[in-house]
């Protein structure tokens, strides 16, 4: 292809690292969750690139499953945040520290 | 001319035709049709001052939109407030890229299919656009810094998401019989067999009801009803931004009618007629737009006839009635197609 696969891989890796930075630096639990979603989607991109390089359609199936699992995880995660907000009135991860010594 | 350049030129020409018909001819006259139709049903004249029979009412409306003062409330997120109508308008206009509005026209020896983009994933493109359109509604409600707008926007967003499911499943049943996800394949199937509204009547009803809910038209327009939530998510909008909301509702209506015609009413075809050559292609375009216009008239007719649903009745209908019906429809259709075996 006229765009080499290395370019797609670089783009996917850069997106993954940006998501990782977001997950490590943000204090709002929702922002951390969003960064994790970005990491999962960057991995989807990498899967698709590798699948195209090998000519293997299984990569599409795996990406399909990753998306479905991300949807399930988002639903349950947000329900947990809602329950957490109801009991602690905050959603910043620094303040949710009842179990600390 | 190389095939790529020819394709590009043909695509630009098709886009020009669709936009010319839709934006220039249809949208302004739709406003007039709606209000005269309302007058007809309610036994009163309707607009009849601006031009003969009130035909230039649309021009007057557009002028009003441009010349009114644009009021932006305080303490809003200005970027979101400005961008929300645009997010709502773009999906309504770009849905037309995959709808076949005619058979095909021979130009310079090559056959030009009258679809702007005949992608493999036709219906999924439309569903993706509908999903993105939800953001316009929800953001308009949020960015207005107004409790009623927020409630209207959230209700409207939840309504659209709920009915999107039934609409998608009902539409998928037509693609299962056609064997491909392209709308042009569905039209081809209907040309060779019968129009889809007959064998898939249940799916047809589900799709039409869901289309009413998707476009926020009566009887599902609670989020923008005046007696309920002031004007819902477009309370705090005036002048040109309100004009964009207005235009996007009508554009959505045209797009939904075009989808209904394509999937269930035979698209650009007539029962015993074959369209060949240049004049056949042009005639098929006329047939398509005539059918779309007929469905739009039904939309307008229903609006001024039926009362509106309460919000809980609306959600009840979407989740407990339409979704099981559309799933059952899909199961039956898939079973029949599987029994017939591979073609």
């Amino acid at each position: 292809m006229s765009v080499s696969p290395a370019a797609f891989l670089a783009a996917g890796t850069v997106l993954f690292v940006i998501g990782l930075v977001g997950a490590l630096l943000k204090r709002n639990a929702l922002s951390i969750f969003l960064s994790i979603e970005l990491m999962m989607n960057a991995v989807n991109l990498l899967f698709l690139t590798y699948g195209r390089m090998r000519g293997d359609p299984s990569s599409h199936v795996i990406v399909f499953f990753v998306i479905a699992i991300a949807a399930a995880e988002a639903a349950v995660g947000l329900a947990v945040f809602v329950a957490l907000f109801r009991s602690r009135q905050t959603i910043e991860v620094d303040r949710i520290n009842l179990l600390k010594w | 001319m190389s095939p790529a350049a020819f394709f590009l030129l043909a695509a630009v020409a098709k886009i020009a035709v669709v936009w010319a018909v839709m934006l220039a001819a249809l949208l302004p006259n739709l406003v007039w049709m709606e209000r005269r139709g309302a007058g007809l049903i309610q036994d009163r004249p309707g607009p009849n001052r601006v031009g003969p029979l009130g035909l230039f009412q649309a021009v007057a409306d557009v002028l009003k939109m441009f010349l009114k003062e644009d009021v932006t409330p305080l303490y809003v997120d200005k970027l979101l407030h400005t961008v929300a109508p645009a997010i709502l308008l773009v999906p309504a206009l770009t849905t037309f890229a995959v709808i076949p509005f005619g058979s095909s026209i021979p130009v310079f020896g090559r056959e030009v299919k009258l679809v702007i983009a005949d992608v493999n994933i036709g219906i999924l493109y439309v569903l993706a656009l509908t999903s993105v359109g939800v953001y316009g509604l929800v953001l308009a409600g949020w960015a207005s810094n107004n409790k009623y707008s927020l409630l209207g926007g959230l209700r409207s967003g939840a309504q659209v998401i709920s009915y999107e499911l039934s609409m998608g499943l009902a539409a998928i049943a037509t693609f299962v019989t056609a064997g491909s996800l392209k709308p042009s394949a569905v039209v081809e199937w209907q040309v060779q067999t019968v129009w889809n509204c007959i064998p898939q009547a249940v799916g047809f009803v589900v799709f039409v009801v869901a289309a009413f809910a998707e476009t926020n038209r009566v009887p599902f327009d609670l989020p923008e009803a005046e007696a309920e939530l002031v004007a819902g998510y477009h309370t705090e909008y005036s002048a040109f931004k309100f004009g964009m909301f207005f235009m996007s509702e009508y554009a959505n209506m045209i797009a939904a009618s075009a989808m209904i015609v394509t999937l269930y009413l035979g698209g650009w075809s007539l029962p015993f007629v074959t369209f060949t050559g240049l004049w056949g292609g042009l005639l098929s375009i006329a047939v398509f737009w005539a059918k779309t216009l007929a469905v739009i008239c039904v939309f307008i007719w229903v609006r001024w006839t039926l009362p509106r649903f309460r919000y809980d009745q609306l959600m009840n209908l979407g989740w407990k009635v339409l979704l099981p019906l559309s799933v059952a429809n899909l199961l039956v259709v898939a079973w029949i197609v599987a029994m017939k075996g591979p073609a």
Partner: protein
Amino acid sequence: MTPELLLFALAAGLAIVFALAMVVEKTPVRSVLSLVVTFFGITVLAVMLAAPFIAAIIMIVYAGAILVLFLFVIMLLNLNEEAREKDSRPVQRVLGLVSALALGGLLLGLTLRAGKPPVEPSTAGGRIPAVDEIPLVGRLLFSDYLFAFEAVAVLLLAAAVGALILSRRRMD
């Protein structure tokens, strides 16, 4: 500058710029919207990788359902305020940033070295092949990956029930 390269640059640039915007934005609503644009960029890249079905699924499920769910939660619980207090552990943030960037450099080096494909699939001059991937994916889902398919269906059911139970108000 071929059209493909231009399209790739635009899509990847859009995705990366808005991913950075998502990390930098203070309010959650704007973060979600930046992420939607990022996902749109990833969708375009997926189409370039001959996966239009997956691209549509990303827009419909990720950008059109999951992120709308995020927006609903933010708007209903009014979580849009920026963080009010000062950061209690600034050293940890710096350490996190440095180690993430180091990991990123390592990953980039590894992927770029492995970026030479072992077998070049036969494509015609870089154009996206007109292979209809949807029947292939469908067949694979129902043959080789049938167990995973059914398991994911059960998982989605469990997630829906779990979300309902977790967010119920206590009937005290």
